[in-house]
């Protein structure tokens, strides 16, 4: 009987404990894989792409709040800035493009962003990529022109079942129960092609429309006519770049100057979001610690089940030794069982981990518009198989040594 047949036979004989060991290891590894993947993808999505915005000009307040509101359509903007101040910033030689916007409305649970028309025609959300309404790319219609027109991001349109020429009354606020602009009717003239960014999760109207909505007080409507009186929520800024694509170093001086003003600040998303991850980084660590403990417990369970199986098999192993099997062969049998269980657990865990990510990604995208994919290969994925081999060897080491030291005569003596 070949070596591997003996190993497989032994596994079958202890199938219950073997399956349990595989499952417990798979659960621990699945959690490790899922946490690592989500952590790395979150970091990539929230810090590396920048969504085409180098900096956000906004009011004084929490920089994180400004980034979450301006880029991810979450939270509220903590105030407003003067239009004349925005114009001064736009004139700075370091600023390549400045797109003003005003927030505060919603429809069907999606934020309505009143924005400069250049956002739809000139703004690049990724290098070389502008918003499109082309049917070939999944869009429809065109950018808004008149003040009663609107366009929808792809996810918002799909969720709300929007079609071209559909009409709506914007809600003055972003919470349930906020008043509706009953007398203002806006019509969808375009649905943007999907971008895979949070821009898909909003509706867009002309900036001027914000001031002209009939339900607003007179002081807001005055802002449509009087530029000196006008206020906006903020502006997306694109900054000059230097060789290599890095932001012009002068941005720090510009940021310093604006941040010393009474009412305004400049926030650089790629500086703010990593700090968010530092703050909530402990959540990752706790989850990883739990996953690590689960995996170690699984390895311990494997160890104890091998030990228990060894106790039951002493006679069989002694018999094998008596017919010529060497100490190393007997030790190898035990170690091989441990390795097979650990590898099966590792592979199952890897698969289960990616399934978990796929399920979680669906809910995360629905809530935040941010894309996560089950196919992402994280740094943990590469470590799973070597890690499983290591744990398998570790768990099987002591039982293997015991098997190596097994006394033939002592274990073959009659039991009576």
């Amino acid at each position, binding site marked *: 009987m070949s070596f591997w047949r003996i190993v497989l036979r032994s596994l079958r004989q202890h199938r219950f404990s073997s399956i349990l060991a595989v499952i417990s290891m798979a659960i621990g590894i699945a959690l490790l894989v899922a946490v690592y993947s989500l952590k790395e993808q979150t970091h990539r999505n929230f810090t590396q792409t920048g969504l085409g915005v180098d900096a956000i000009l906004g009011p004084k307040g929490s920089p994180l709040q400004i980034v979450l509101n301006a880029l991810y359509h979450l939270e509220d903007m903590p105030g407003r800035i003067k239009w004349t*101040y925005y114009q*001064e*910033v736009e004139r*700075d030689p370091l600023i390549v493009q400045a797109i003003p916007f005003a927030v505060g409305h919603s429809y069907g649970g999606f934020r309505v962003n009143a924005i400069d028309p250049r956002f739809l025609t000139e703004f690049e959300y990724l290098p070389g990529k502008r918003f499109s309404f082309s049917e070939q790319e999944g869009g429809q219609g065109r950018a808004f022109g008149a003040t009663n027109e609107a366009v929808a991001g792809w996810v918002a349109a799909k969720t709300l079942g929007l079609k071209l020429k559909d009409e709506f009354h914007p809600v003055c606020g972003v919470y349930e129960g906020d008043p509706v602009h009953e007398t203002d009717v806006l019509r969808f003239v375009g649905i943007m092609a999907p971008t895979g960014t949070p821009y898909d999760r909003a509706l867009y109207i002309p900036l001027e429309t914000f001031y002209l909505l009939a339900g607003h007080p007179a002081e807001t409507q005055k802002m449509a006519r009087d530029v000196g009186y006008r206020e906006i929520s903020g502006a997306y800024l694109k900054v000059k770049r230097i060789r290599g694509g890095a932001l012009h170093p002068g941005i*720090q*001086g*510009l940021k*310093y*100057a*604006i*941040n*010393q*003003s*009474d009412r305004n600040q400049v926030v650089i998303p790629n500086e703010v979001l990593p700090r968010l991850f*530092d703050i909530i980084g402990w959540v990752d*660590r706790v989850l990883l*610690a739990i996953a*690590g*403990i689960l995996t*170690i417990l699984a*390895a*311990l369970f494997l*160890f*104890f089940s091998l*030990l228990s199986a060894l*106790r039951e098999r002493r006679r069989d192993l002694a018999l094998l030794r008596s017919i010529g099997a060497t100490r190393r062969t007997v030790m190898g049998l035990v170690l091989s069982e441990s390795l097979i269980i650990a590898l099966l657990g590792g592979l199952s865990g890897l698969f289960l981990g990616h399934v978990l990510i796929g399920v979680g990604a669906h809910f995360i995208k629905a809530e935040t518009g941010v894309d996560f994919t089950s196919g992402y290969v994280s740094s943990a994925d590469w470590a799973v198989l070597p890690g499983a081999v290591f744990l398998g060897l*570790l*768990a099987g*080491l*002591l*039982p293997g040594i*015991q098997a190596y030291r097994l006394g033939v005569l002592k274990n073959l003596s009659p039991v009576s």
Partner: protein
Amino acid sequence: MKRDLSSAFLAVALMAALGLLLLGPVEAARHEEHRGRGHEAPHGGVLNVIGKELAHVEILLEGDTLEAWFLSGGHDTGLSVRIKAAEIPLKVTFPGKGEMKLILRAAPLKLAGEKIGNCSHFTAKADWLRGAREFEAKGGVVIKGIREGLIIRYPGGYDPIHGTKDH
């Protein structure tokens, strides 16, 4: 039985050691983050303390232009402090070369809403500043309502309490 127990104990000890091995780098990284945080010069220049950490003046020398920003004291070097003076005369000493006069002139940061007489940013220009590697400048300034001496040391900075390095 005894052998099984000692094996079990060894196994647990090995697993625990493995866990600690993994946690070690995590803890080290955390300590690394907290180490080395001192006063930061927001423009990449050199910090000089004014008074007993009442304020700072950050200076940056590029070519023939010296820029100075008046900043808050302590760890608040990200906050500007505005002063009323439109000009700040300085006596600049170069080691082994003697003394020169330099006048820092208010250069308001418009986007910060500053004006001459309510300004945190000053500049001075002189041909002899070009290529300067080391100097000390002395003057005086009224800052936060208090008249204080101004000592600027380049490139090491001036901090009589903590020394010239980060603290």
